[in-house]
């Protein structure tokens, strides 16, 4: 007899992979359309009505392309990286409660699981940069490591502040701890925590203005300079999947998860998540890129001390 818990996880994983893949397609379309409208142009328009099939065409193109390995690259590391990049993201979604009963793995340490696997992402970027034996790739990887390690600290502190408030690391419990109405959500009780989390999420997912590991105008394409076809495609999908994870976690921790006025349910969750993703996309097409020392200064000089102060503030609130 197969363990029902295992079966549940397997089904959930398949579902999650489908969800992530579909979302990646939808988000690529959304990103290009939003970018288009920000830049006073229609965006993709040719493939299907309003270019709605464009991401599909892109995906087919990427799959059809030849996979090239640079001559001096280490093929094992080189090809391990994109695969390793994508896998932890799928696992990160397991403990996220999308709805009252829509949770794949109701873990007491759900938040820890997400943080642990999210930390793996930087390893794959490091491997990609090192394995492709390209100087630009190496610089990109070095940037990614420094950036992600630095920003993980304020991120953890921001998450910790929510854990203090709820007294739990179980994402379902955290959701239930917040009420129906927006003023009962953590974002208003702990606004600084939310801002710190959001900035760190931008940096952790390598999105502009913190897209230094792949800064196009400086490092050509950074860590994925040498990847072609689906090698690049996996990194690309992982970026969007990372955005989904980061925004889902933000929704659970700060925006009340699936709680919402009138009819709580998964639709509220998705609405909040997509709103955050929309904000991230909007930011990318609006701001210039920061420089590397500015990025680290922001983290060590501002975010870490502020996050620590925020912890003190949250403990006082909890005491009261």
């Amino acid at each position, binding site marked *: 007899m197969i363990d029902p818990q295992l079966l549940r996880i397997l089904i959930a994983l398949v579902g999650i992979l489908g969800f992530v893949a579909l979302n990646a397609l939808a988000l690529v379309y959304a990103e290009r359309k939003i970018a288009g409208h920000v830049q006073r142009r229609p965006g993709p328009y040719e493939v299907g009505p309003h270019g709605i099939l464009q991401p599909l065409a892109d995906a087919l193109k990427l799959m059809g392309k030849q996979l090239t390995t640079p001559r001096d690259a280490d093929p094992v590391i080189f090809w391990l990286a994109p695969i390793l990049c994508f896998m932890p993201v799928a696992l990160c979604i397991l403990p996220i409660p999308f709805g009252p009963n829509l949770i794949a793995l109701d873990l007491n340490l759900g938040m820890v699981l997400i943080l642990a696997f999210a930390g793996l992402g930087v390893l794959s970027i490091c491997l990609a940069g090192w394995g492709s034996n390209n100087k630009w790739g190496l610089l990109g990887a070095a940037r990614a490591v420094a950036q992600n390690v630095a920003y993980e600290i304020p991120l953890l502190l921001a998450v910790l502040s929510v854990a203090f408030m709820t007294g739990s690391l179980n994402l379902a419990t955290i959701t239930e701890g917040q009420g129906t109405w927006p003023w009962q959500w953590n974002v208003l009780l702990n606004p600084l925590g939310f801002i710190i989390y959001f900035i760190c999420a931008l940096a952790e997912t390598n999105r502009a203005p913190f897209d230094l590991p792949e*800064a196009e105008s400086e490092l050509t394409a950074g860590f994925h300079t040498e990847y072609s076809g689906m090698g690049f495609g996996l990194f690309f999908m992982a970026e969007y999947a990372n955005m989904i994870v980061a925004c889902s976690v933000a929704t659970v921790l700060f925006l009340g998860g699936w709680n919402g006025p009138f009819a709580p349910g998964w639709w509220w969750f998705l609405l909040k998540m997509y709103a955050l993703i929309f904000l991230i996309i909007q930011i990318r097409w609006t*701001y*210039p890129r920061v420089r590397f020392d500015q990025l680290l200064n922001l983290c060590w000089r501002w975010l870490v001390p502020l996050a620590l102060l925020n912890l003190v503030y949250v403990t006082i609130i909890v005491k009261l």
Partner: protein
Amino acid sequence: MFTREQIAERGFYTQHFEQGKQDNTLILNMGPQHPSTHGVLRVMLEIDGEYILRAEPVLGYIHRMHEKMAEGKTYAQFITNMGRVDYLHALAWNWAFVGAVEKLGDTPPTPRAEYLRVITCELNRISSHLLWWGAYLLDLGAFTPILYAFGDREELLDILQDLTGSRLTYASFTFGGVVADMNDALRERITRFIARMRDRLHMYKSLVTDNFILLGRVEDIGHIPMDMAVRYGATGPVLRGSGVAYDVRRAEPYSVYPQLDFIVPTSDRTDALGRYLVRMQELEQSLNIIEQAVVQIPEGEIQAKMPKKPKIPAGEVYFAVEGARGKIGCYLQSDGGGSPYRIKLRAPSFSNLSLFAELSQGTLLADAVSILGSLDLVIPEIDR
């Protein structure tokens, strides 16, 4: 021809790099295919981490020997070459050559043609600065402004297309005049464009120039002290960004510029932001010039009476104009024949680029990109 030993002895451009890298440094080839070298500029960098220890521009990837080409062409045929030296401010190059020929042959253009030249040349300067603005911000990682700039540029190019017949590689100046006249409808369009562009510049300032992330990327980056700018022969906004009010339109006046009221913007900041602000102010000044020119322009012929094959007397002449990137000079030597005996073109980007090696020492890679962008280089002009 030099032997390899002689080149090594004399100090060839890659000499530093032939010695190999030091311990713990990386030699990096930026270009000739790199998104922010804007064409085929190649810069060899030796970096320690992300800090640049040495930088050497390597030129010649788009050398088309325009100067040599002139010797095999008639004077009139060579005008089309000039539009291709610097494709962003092609009309200034047109003017440098045509002006040199006119100076040598003493065949000045008609007054109306002078004003038409000023109008088209300044419109072209605006389109060049707009493109620089968009591309520079693209270098700094802001994707959107370039499309806004191109939106404005599109309207401008439509006007220029009707004024000159082309959109990019202009060749509309003739000896003693210009090829096409401006009618009232065009004058109306230009006036409307000026009003619109002023609005847009205001928006660009509040939307982009005042953005604190942008300021962080351009403030105190790439300081060019005044003496250094002069030492390298920098001209144009690069020199004016270091506080020297040198503008060929004022320093060596030509055409009708003395009758037009405009200031030469300078900045004492000497950094990338200084050069940025100078260019933004120049956009406004160019709009002022055009606004006055379309009012002052006299009626009359647009082409002076010239023989079909102009006879250029033997002799030599130098004529310089102010391009978007600096002083554009044309040295012309004639032996009295049908084609130039020798032409030497002074490209401002060449002098401005030579600053880069010294400027980028000790900066971060990201700052080097910012510095390179702030010099506003057009690579075909450097290699000619």
